[in-house]
């Protein structure tokens, strides 16, 4: 069975709430992580990403100055950043379907609705480490492949012309947000 060695990863937490940062750091330390960087707003998060070169980013949505979604757009710039492919796990109190979809379309890798649990957090990290997805670049999107499952009964138009990425079977973001504590 695959095990994640958290001690070999560097994490960046971007959240304006001091208490949430402390909770996240405590959980990550509990998993075995030692290398955890923190930023308290989007600007600090961008600096932490650029200078700290983290392996995984935890990102809050609601923050002053510029928010989590805006920070994702800055990170997912192919060619402009050291690692535009960095896995981004969005941790947020937003639980509406439209929000999950908006976060997915901005290029997040995983979504975890607050209140967070140790199990839910571990599962998200496990997913990005053990089941990495290819990236898709189109005229309007750059981010992890949003197709997590194949639907054999789908009868709509093929929106990707000229071939499609292999789909790595995973539970969809919305289903995860709905079921995993």
């Amino acid at each position, binding site marked *: 069975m695959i095990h994640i060695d958290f001690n070999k990863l560097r994490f960046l937490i971007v959240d304006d709430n001091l208490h*949430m940062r402390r*909770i996240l750091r405590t959980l990550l330390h509990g998993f075995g992580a030692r290398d955890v960087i923190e930023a308290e707003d989007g600007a600090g998060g961008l600096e932490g990403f650029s200078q700290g070169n983290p392996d995984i980013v935890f990102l809050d949505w609601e923050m002053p100055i510029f928010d989590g979604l805006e920070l994702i757009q800055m990170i997912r710039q192919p060619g402009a950043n050291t690692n535009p492919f960095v896995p981004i796990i969005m941790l947020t109190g937003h639980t509406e379907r439209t929000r999950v979809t908006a976060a997915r379309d901005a290029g997040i890798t995983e979504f975890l609705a607050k209140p967070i649990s140790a199990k839910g957090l571990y599962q998200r990290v496990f997913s990005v480490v053990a089941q990495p997805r290819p990236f898709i670049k189109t005229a309007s999107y750059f981010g992890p492949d949003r197709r997590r499952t194949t639907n054999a009964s789908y009868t709509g138009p093929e929106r990707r012309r000229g*071939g499609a990425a292999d789909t790595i079977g995973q539970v969809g973001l919305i289903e995860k947000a709905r079921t995993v504590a």
Partner: protein
Amino acid sequence: MAQDRNDRPTVATYADHEVIVPPNRLKKAVAVTKPAGFDPVAQAEEALEGLASEFADWMDRECAKLDEARQRVRMEGFADETRDELFRSAHDIKGEAATFGFPLVAPPADSLCRLIEHTPDMTRIPLELVDQHVDAIRAIVREHARTDIEQVARTLTRRLRDVTDEFLRHENRDRPEILKIVMAPSLVPSDRSD
């Protein structure tokens, strides 16, 4: 330094998109064998438990922050900055309350978030309804040791939610597509305590 072939993404180009397989820099953390007796989730839960003695104080601080944001709205009125401050305070409480051991506080905080977020003209948000939400949140925290707090909190929350829904229906009556989103159920049960 020359870049190793494995450090470069592989790119397959199609008619209107590219499929990119980035270098997997996280594989360094994948181990096939788990240290005997090591349960990372249980260990993290235990570490979180070590913070539990601080949670009541943290909840009080979040309530104080919410109250300050409410006072600022009362003094300066709704503007982008005061609205955002109030929304973020309520949103933080919504997300943290269950972790802090106050799950009954999350639903009224969620109701306040909906009121702020989905009212198209913020100047029409009734301050009295804001006050009722903030006071309910603070009261539930203050009285959380009462034996009947669950029933009291649920009754309060249901009433706040009903009044808020009625207000939002009216304010969004000409925006059916928005109203559909506003009234859609949350993906996550708002009063879960796990």
